[in-house]
């Protein structure tokens, strides 16, 4: 990281840019383009690395500090390319397959929409589940005695047929005897198998009862059983049963007992556990994921459907803001809050001390659509060379519910719909929390050795990682929908002020390099922090995303120190003790440069899923700072906060 922002960081930067473009396409419902862009990123990275390696000629500098990052990026691009490919490859055949059956119309409409090729990046829940299952398969399965017997009989039969084929037609007697002996053997096999199966079944039943009793004893403290407790009891019994048949849980328990403080062991256990699809915990994970996905899917697909109709009728948001203004002005004042006031709004909630932590995400804001800036101002901005992300955003926000095609008959309807979306999201978030809690408590129940504070944290982190990985994308899509207005305002600010120098954002002069000396074209101060922040999009687990934010802020501090030392032209470290007075302006600059308006939604989601223990720690501080910087940049285009 020593090379602050000079030429050395360039390939990574370009690669990041490519990947970011691909992600933008991906989230923007363009899997084919995204797929191509991912492949381009990968190709670019390997080309760049190849050149570097060739230049180094086997020397030690073949691997630069950026190399692991580049490789990681390539890996992540490959992952995403795979899922894009899955989207491209899977949705169509599935739809054909279901062709004659009375499949839900909505899917047909979407898949075969006249938008042509614009497939949803999100698979229908049924296919989501199928993928879950196929991923789960491929592990050996134990056969029941009857299955085993029939397998053996098949072998016998095959052997018999082979022998008969070898016999001459004249050896009829031998053939008959062979046939008879085969029938006898097969019968015997079956009888034996049946008997074995019966005893086994009896034993299993006995064991199940015994385990159920054990589970009951375990839970005996509570008298009245809620359905959840009953369910947990059943699951626990299932786990005990599983453990009777499998060796590994016992081995892991022993290992845990031996090294109770080894957190790597905890991670290992969880990934091991989840790699056995027939383990009750892994099964519960799949079921809960599917439940959440089925709830998210209708919302995101509805939005996408809205989008496709909207993009045909609307063009960009200059018309949008016109309509919105016409629509919103007559609305009763109390209903409409400007997004700039979101903080005050939040504050008033705090005053009531309702649910302090969730204030930001649960406050019923009804967003305005930029009514403060006049539409005439918007028009030239639209003509400016736009980046694809901006176009996407434009389409994304041009949904009919925020701008009606007909005369504004019911001015309150959009607000109501928005509120219901918010409610839905809130309920889903609650379900996610409950799901993760259930998985965690079941895991702790199954492996008592995990029940220490640090192991529990580690365990939770691993469970979340597994849980969120297929769900983050659709979840974020819903968040983006809810925080649309703020995202629009932010993207506007980013467009308009993208060349604003750090000094105008309040960064003090000694904390960024003056002039352009030593800086290649296209490079700018704190670019490494911008890159670090951009990596957030590639992660799909809240904890990992928070780590990205923390890293970005740390890089800011490192860079600031470096710049400061360069100014004073004496290599004395720690001369710039960066406090919030310095950090926030720099972070605002980094946010502006990142050109990632979806950070608003990412942060809102992260605020919901950050662990309680991290809330007041470094992660919480970094998240809060990022949210502040976002709010500040968002307000920039109103000019209210620049001083």
């Amino acid at each position, binding site marked *: 990281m020593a090379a602050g922002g000079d030429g050395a960081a360039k390939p990574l930067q370009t690669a990041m840019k490519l990947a970011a473009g691909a992600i933008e396409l991906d989230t923007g419902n363009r899997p084919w383009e995204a797929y191509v862009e991912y492949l381009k990123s990968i190709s670019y990275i390997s080309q760049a690395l190849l050149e570097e390696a060739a230049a180094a000629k086997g020397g030690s500098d073949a691997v630069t500090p950026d190399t692991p990052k580049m490789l990681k990026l390539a890996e992540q691009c490959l992952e995403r390319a795979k899922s894009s490919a899955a989207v491209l490859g899977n949705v169509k055949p599935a739809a054909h397959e279901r062709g004659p059956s009375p499949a839900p119309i909505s899917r047909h409409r979407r898949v075969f929409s006249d938008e042509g090729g614009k497939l949803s990046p999100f698979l229908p829940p049924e296919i989501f589940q199928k993928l879950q299952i196929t991923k789960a398969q491929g592990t050996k399965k134990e056969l029941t005695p009857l299955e085993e017997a029939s397998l053996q009989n098949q072998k016998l039969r095959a052997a018999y047929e082979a022998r008969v084929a070898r016999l001459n037609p004249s050896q009829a007697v031998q053939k008959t005897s062979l046939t008879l002996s085969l029938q006898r053997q097969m019968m015997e096999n079956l009888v034996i198998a049946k008997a074995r199966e019966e005893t086994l079944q009896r034993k299993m039943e006995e064991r199940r009862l015994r385990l159920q009793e054990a589970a009951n004893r375990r839970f005996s403290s509570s008298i009245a059983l809620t359905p959840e407790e009953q369910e947990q009891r059943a699951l626990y019994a299932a786990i005990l049963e599983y453990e009777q048949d499998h060796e590994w849980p016992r081995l892991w328990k022993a290992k845990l007992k031996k090294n109770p403080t080894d957190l790597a062991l905890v991670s290992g256990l969880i990934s091991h556990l989840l790699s056995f699809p027939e383990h009750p915990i892994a099964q519960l994970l799949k079921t809960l994921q599917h439940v959440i996905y089925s709830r998210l899917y209708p919302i995101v697909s509805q939005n996408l459907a809205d989008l496709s109709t909207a993009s045909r009728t609307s063009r960009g948001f200059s018309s949008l803001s016109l309509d919105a203004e016409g629509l919103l002005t007559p609305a009763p004042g109390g209903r409409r809050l400007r997004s700039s006031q979101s*903080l005050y709004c939040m504050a008033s909630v705090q*005053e009531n001390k309702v649910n302090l932590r969730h204030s930001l995400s649960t406050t019923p804001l009804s967003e305005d659509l930029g009514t403060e800036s006049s539409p005439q101002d918007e028009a030239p901005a639209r003509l400016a060379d736009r980046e694809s992300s901006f176009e996407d955003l434009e389409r994304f926000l041009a949904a009919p519910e925020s701008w009606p095609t007909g005369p504004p008959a019911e001015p309150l309807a959009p607000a109501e719909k928005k509120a219901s979306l918010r409610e839905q999201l809130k309920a889903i978030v609650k379900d996610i929390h409950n799901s993760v809690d259930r998985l965690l408590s079941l895991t702790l129940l199954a492996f008592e050795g995990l029940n220490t504070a640090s192991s529990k944290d580690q365990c939770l982190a691993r469970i979340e990682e597994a849980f969120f990985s297929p769900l983050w994308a659709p979840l974020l899509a819903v968040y983006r929908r809810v925080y649309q207005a703020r995202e629009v305002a932010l993207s506007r600010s980013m467009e308009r002020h993208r060349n604003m120098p750090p000094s105008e954002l309040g960064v003090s002069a000694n904390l960024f390099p003056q002039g352009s000396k030593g800086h290649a074209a296209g490079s700018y101060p704190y670019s490494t922090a911008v890159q670090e922040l951009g990596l957030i999009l590639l992660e799909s687990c809240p904890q990992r995303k928070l780590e990205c934010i923390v890293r970005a802020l740390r890089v800011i501090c490192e860079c600031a120190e470096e710049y400061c030392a360069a100014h004073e032209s004496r290599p004395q470290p720690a001369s710039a003790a*960066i*406090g*919030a007075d310095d950090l926030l302006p720099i972070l605002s600059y980094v946010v502006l440069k990142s050109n990632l308006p979806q950070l608003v939604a990412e942060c809102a989601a992260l605020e919901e899923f950050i662990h309680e223990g991290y809330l007041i*720690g*470094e992660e919480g501080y970094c998240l809060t700072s990022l949210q502040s910087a976002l709010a500040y940049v968002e307000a920039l285009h109103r000019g209210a906060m620049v*001083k």
Partner: protein
Amino acid sequence: MAAAAGSGAGGGGRSFSFKVVLLGEGCVGKTSLVLRYCENKFNDKHITTLQASFLTKKLNIGGKRVNLAIWDTAGQERFHALGPIYYRDSNGAILVYDITDEDSFQKVKNWVKELRKMLGNEICLCIVGNKIDLEKERHVSVQEAETYAESVGAKHYHTSAKQNKGIEELFLDLCKRMIETAQVDERARGNGASQSGTARRGVQIIDDEPQAQSSGGCCSSG
């Protein structure tokens, strides 16, 4: 998840986690103040990589372990509106002014108003007159500052980051007050509905080592 909070009242090996926000105008010296405090005594651990923006400190006060998370905030006017998301869930606030700068004291008064409005009386306020090494250039009278502090239920402290005066006392006192508040809060909650909803976030009273009673004693000096 918040299960650990309400249970096991009493007993020694308790640990508290407190969030403290640091407020003050640009050049009142809040950065040096907090750096001084966190570098000073327990020098075993390097200060966090976020430098003076976010600092942590572990203390042991009468057998109670305290984890302090000190959140610096931006003092510039342009970031004023962003304050609330920094101070939510704070247990304490340190408001710093420069005794040679009347203006910075006025700013403190504004913040006090805002904090009381947002967080009520649950937050422990400390008003700190920094730079007492520059006594000769004092522009804020001791009398005025202390009277004001008392009138808003805050405590007043005199410090010098430069000479390292009064800082240790300030934080120790604040921690004691926060423990007090947390215990009162906890007792009140204990009497009320047993486990209704999530406990107020921020006051995390963690019973660490719930099973390891055998290890006895709580005298693990930090």
